[in-house]
């Protein structure tokens, strides 16, 4: 018996030495942000994928606030997790020249055929695949159809209809009613939408790496925002500040249906629908367009990517875990729609019929709409900060639309110049 056991041990050692045995068990780390449901789903997925591939994956998770600061500090010290969830607009911050993370095309184990070329391009920096898009998201119009029904006005399908509906809603229900909402980044994206619809161009021209719009084109978009305030469709920035800059979904006016629409991420439908009082219905609707629009101006992008640390000692194991999370049944089932509708084709097919139909509908609207490719610089901290601050100056009457447009374009070009 002793001889048999010793022989088995020796044989095992020999096989292991030759690399013929089962994969070596590595201890990996993965970091992400999210809410409770995402944390639970991801931990379950990591357990399932870890068991399947013979590795242990330790989760490091927080809420969104502070995640960027934590990740930045870790990246600076080279101590980031092996697998990192990265917000798509952060890719230029961490991997300006495509060397911030491991090149995912060089790692075996990830079935890249499950993503479209556009998705893979979106996750690349200077042509190097730095992150795998987990899901795609975009801004979509949500309307409280109950409010419009109560006012006897059809739900708007164009900006002109929205502007025409506003006085009717106010006349029927009261001056405290607003047909729409646009503050901070939503205001920025609304101006972006207007100009994109008019010109067919996104904020940044990828060819020249400069702002694609002329000051006149942008000024028209800013004036449009002003018109929404003047007509009473949305609250002014001053009103929003007076009320304490409360998030839309936390406002009693939203819950009561007194604010009847907004332009939000498709995946956030539940966040906005859940606070509504009983009997109110929130529906995603097709893109509102301006007269003479050359495109729907859809603002869609990968919501986040999974990257692998270039400092990881277990890059191949990490690649297998990433593939399992996104392409294999164990990972797909456990993750579900905790990160929105999956970008991976096999995951999308497997989850069909299991996701909230309103989220599916909202996502379908975003994906069906036309629009230029969105540059991650749209959400660069300095670009966004300059855009929002300038809109605030315009809203408070400090500058006119033309000066505001020039200020936004100059500020954005200054940032873009640093990345040339």
């Amino acid at each position, binding site marked *: 018996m002793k001889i048999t056991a010793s022989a088995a041990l020796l044989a095992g050692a020999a096989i292991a030495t030759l690399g013929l045995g089962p994969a070596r068990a590595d201890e990996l780390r993965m970091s992400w942000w999210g809410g409770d449901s995402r944390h639970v789903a991801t931990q379950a997925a990591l357990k399932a994928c870890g068991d399947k591939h013979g590795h242990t994956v330790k989760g490091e998770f927080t809420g969104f606030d502070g995640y960027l600061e934590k990740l*930045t500090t870790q990246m600076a010290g080279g101590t980031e997790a092996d697998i990192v969830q990265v917000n798509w607009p952060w890719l230029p911050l961490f991997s*300006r020249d495509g060397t911030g993370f491991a090149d995912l095309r060089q790692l075996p184990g990830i079935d890249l055929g499950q993503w479209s070329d556009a998705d893979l391009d979106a996750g690349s920096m200077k042509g190097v695949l730095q992150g795998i898009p987990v899901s795609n998201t975009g801004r979509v119009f949500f309307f409280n159809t109950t409010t419009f029904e109560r006012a006897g006005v059809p739900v708007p399908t164009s900006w002109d209809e929205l502007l025409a509906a506003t006085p009717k809603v106010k006349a029927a229900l009261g001056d405290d009613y607003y047909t729409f909402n646009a503050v901070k980044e939503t205001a920025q994206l609304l101006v972006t939408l207007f100009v994109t619809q008019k010109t067919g161009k996104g904020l940044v021209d990828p060819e020249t790496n400069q702002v694609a719009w002329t000051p006149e084109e942008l000024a028209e978009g800013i004036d449009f925002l002003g018109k929404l305030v003047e007509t009473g469709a949305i609250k002014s920035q*001053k*009103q929003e500040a007076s*009320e304490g800059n409360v998030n839309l979904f936390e406002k009693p006016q939203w819950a009561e249906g007194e604010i009847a629409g907004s332009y939000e991420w498709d995946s956030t439908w539940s966040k906005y629908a859940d606070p509504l009082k009983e009997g109110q219905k929130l529906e995603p609707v097709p893109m509102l367009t301006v007269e003479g629009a050359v495109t729907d101006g859809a603002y869609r992008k990968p919501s986040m990517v999974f990257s692998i640390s270039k400092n990881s000692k277990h890059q191949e194991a990490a690649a297998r875990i990433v593939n399992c999370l996104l392409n294999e049944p164990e990972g797909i089932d456990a993750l579900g729609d905790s990160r929105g509708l999956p970008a991976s084709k096999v995951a999308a097919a497997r989850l069909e019929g299991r996701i909230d139909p309103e989220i599916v509908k909202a996502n379908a609207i975003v994906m069906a709409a036309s629009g230029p490719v969105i540059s991650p610089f749209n959400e660069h901290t300095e670009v966004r900060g300059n855009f929002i601050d300038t809109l605030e100056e315009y809203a408070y009457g400090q500058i006119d639309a033309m000066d505001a447009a020039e200020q936004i374009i100059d500020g954005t070009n200054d940032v873009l110049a640093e990345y040339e």
Partner: protein
Amino acid sequence: MKSQRALGLAYLTPYVVGLLVFTMIPFVASLYLSFTKYDLMSAPKWVGFDNFVKLFTRDRTFWKSLNVTLLYVFLTVPLKLAFALFIAAILNYRLRFINFFRTAFYVPSILGGSIAIAVLWRYIFASEGLANMALDLVGLGPVDWFGDPGNALFTITLLRCWQFGSAMVIFLAALQSIDKSLYEAARIDGASQTRIFFAITLPLLTPVIFFNLIMQMVQAFQEFNGPYIITQGGPLKATYLLPLYIYEEAFKKFNMGYASAIAWVLFVIITVLTLVAFWSSKKWVYYAGDKRS
């Protein structure tokens, strides 16, 4: 004797190590970084005085933020000290339930710096919040606490003043240590309460006023939570204090070198104002037994 010395050093070691590792090294490192361009992702690049030149010659946000910060400090510190002294003087009387009142007035200081209180403040001073409801009850019109750039800083100042407890406790202790025979002598001489306060209480409190002044000034220059949570520095950067600017440059825009330069300018301002306070203290602070007095 030797073993006692070793024990003393052993007790000191954790503090000294903590001070060196978590305060002195970052302190010196930030001075070095202030002369560099550093985005955390690549090695710091020496740029000499570029950050400071940009700060003083081209950065409108810095000047706006500095003005707002100085205004905030010059509003907050005197208001808070006056209020703390006023409450301490009342709580120095032998009233019924005095211990309850002393505790109650101290509580805001424990809660005041918290995120929850900052959020609460946002609701109280919102356009339809408690503050405007109260004004409405007494027939006064609503005030635009946050929407009007002229009012927003004052609203943030109120939050800081509300946390007067720690200064109040120090004042209260100082008031109780004043020799009662001085008051008796003054009363026998026919001095009024006002005269007693200005001729006896206030001069004897000046060392404590001086201490509170320095502490409150340093804290006010470092205020972050209130404006960050309540107004996010707005509207129109009316509450954009320098610590907010440093935070955004460092952790949102990854301009660590530039943020370090702003932090050092803030440090120099605090140091200069503290030195001015120390210099001026020779003229107005009274130390019992001091040869100068």
